[in-house]
């Protein structure tokens, strides 16, 4: 669920960046109060572990050919607690952006919120609230499963919302939302299974690591897995159809942001005041308001228009050609200078 730059508008991106920064600053400040010096390397290594863990895959049930891998937010939150877990996963997200170029620079704020902060806290508190009291295998199972599925869904829901608020969504919102929820339901389910299985393994070989969070033995049974799958499918399916029916029709939504038909009444702005407010804000305050000069490219076959179009064709050609020549020129100069230098040396 890595967001790309192109799914966001600048105000939303900067806004989420600011929220993420403030959130992280707050969490770090909070963490500094209780963190012991021996936690530094543990956190760092566990972050790296999350990376490596994503390479270990296993076959998913019911769908041969598909394999799952873990995401790790909830497992880390269970082992390290929500604050440290959120910091570790945030750093993972930042590294994914800065070293592996996964997710855009501008979308970093969204990604930190969606994938690190929200899942860590939601997952941890769901898990804790289910497993409070004396140990029971069933409760641990339900707790971890709920924590993983809901935490990941919560993060995934934010992606279409942020995109919609940015007003860049071409795909109908409801379609996007349902796809995201559906895919991440599977992701969350796999995550839950693997989290539980890892906890079980840890308990078998290094009980001291998970001693605070697991007092008894975790067991995974096939029936429990299938029952969970069924329950979740029904719940999510029902929820989704409710959500979907409340949404404007997919096609209409995409019309809603069509400036080329000024007499078309946008449905969405009636339904969702926040969206329209943000849209409004955006058209007013983005450095480059979006739809200003597009007429020259839209199709009416007026002759004068035609003329404008042809000239627009030439200017755009000139732009592309000029840029291409510039790049070629730069490349030639640099390689010439370099050759000269290496000859001198």
């Amino acid at each position: 669920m890595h967001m790309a730059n192109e799914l966001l508008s600048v105000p939303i991106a900067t806004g989420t960046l600011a929220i993420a920064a403030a959130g992280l600053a707050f969490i770090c400040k909070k963490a500094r109060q209780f963190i012991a010096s021996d936690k530094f390397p543990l956190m760092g290594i566990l972050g790296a572990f999350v990376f490596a863990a994503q390479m270990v895959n296993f076959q998913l049930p019911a769908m041969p050919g598909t394999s799952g891998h873990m995401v790790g937010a909830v497992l880390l939150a269970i082992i390290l607690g929500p604050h440290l877990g959120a910091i570790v996963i945030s750093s993972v997200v930042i590294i994914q952006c800065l070293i592996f170029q996964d997710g855009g620079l501008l979308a970093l704020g969204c990604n930190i919120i969606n994938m690190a902060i929200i899942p860590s806290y939601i997952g941890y508190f769901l898990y804790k609230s289910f497993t409070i009291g004396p140990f029971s295998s069933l409760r641990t199972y339900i707790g971890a499963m709920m924590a993983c599925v809901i935490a990941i869904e919560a993060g995934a829901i934010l992606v279409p919302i942020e995109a919609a608020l940015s007003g860049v969504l071409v795909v109908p919102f409801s379609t996007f939302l349902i796809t995201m929820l559906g895919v991440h339901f599977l992701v969350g389910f796999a995550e839950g299974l693997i989290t539980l299985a890892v906890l079980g393994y840890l308990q078998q070989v290094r009980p001291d690591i998970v001693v605070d969070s697991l007092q008894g033995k975790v067991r995974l049974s096939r029936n429990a897995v299938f029952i969970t799958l069924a329950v979740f499918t029904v719940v999510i399916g029902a929820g989704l159809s409710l959500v979907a029916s409340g949404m404007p029709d997919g096609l209409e939504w995409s019309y809603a942001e069509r400036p080329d038909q000024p007499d078309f009444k946008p449905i969405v702005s009636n339904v969702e005041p926040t969206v329209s407010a943000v849209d409004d804000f955006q058209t007013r305050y983005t450095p480059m308001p979006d739809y200003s000069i597009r007429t020259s490219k839209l199709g009416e076959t007026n002759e004068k228009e035609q003329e404008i179009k042809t000239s627009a064709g030439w200017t755009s050609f000139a732009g592309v050609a000029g840029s291409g020549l510039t790049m070629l020129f730069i490349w030639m100069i640099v390689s010439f200078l370099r050759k000269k230098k290496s000859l001198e040396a």
Partner: protein
Amino acid sequence: MHHAYIDKFAYQDSPIHRLDGRVKFIVALTFTAVVVSLPRTSLSILTCYAVGPFTILVLGRIPLRFAFKHILLVCPFILVLALTCPLYDRTPVNVAFGLFLWQTSLGWMRCFTILGKFIVTMLALIALVSTTRFSNLLTGLHKLGVPKLLIIQLGFLYRYIFILIDSAHHILRARDGRKLTNLGFTAELKIAAAMLGSLLIRSIDSAERINIAMQARGFEGKWRSISKLKFRRCDLLFTLSAASFLFGLHFFIKPILL
């Protein structure tokens, strides 16, 4: 994925590599913001913006093949999104490019703009990352106000990701060397969990050893480091030229092209 693979170009030397990490970071961020907020149907202006990261890449001696390989690696998600545009937006548009004039749909225009923006912003990000050593980027980010705890985390992550990825690869290899059949879901899950578990235990063990190594060198919880960042004249020059590039494109070239 191996060590030297992902960040080898950051360790070269060139005028671009010598610039202050902060400056490069801010310029890249601004550039990305400007490109993202470009109108959604104009492709030609994007090529003008591409000149910027292209120049940095060439000056920094980053092979363009490397950059594009990277872009290909991370593009699937955005590709799917871009390709849905033509499905949902069929408004016909006439496109003129030089002598040619043809009709297509707004959706296709958007699709290509999204991809174009993606490529240009990714080029900028790659230009930033592959001309800046990660440690310098970290010091730069710290100077820009990122909390120290997060910086420390990022440092550790950067150091150990490659090691752990390698050992994950090795474990997978050991499994593949002995795995001939699919043993069924439960067994598969157990094996995967055991592999993850042993990776986790090893991580925790090495965290314990690193902790000893840190304490052996007097670490008591207070993180000290020497900043090697200096804002020099060439940084100013770079900032000015980047600013004038963006400014010029925005106020002079863009109105003509659109």
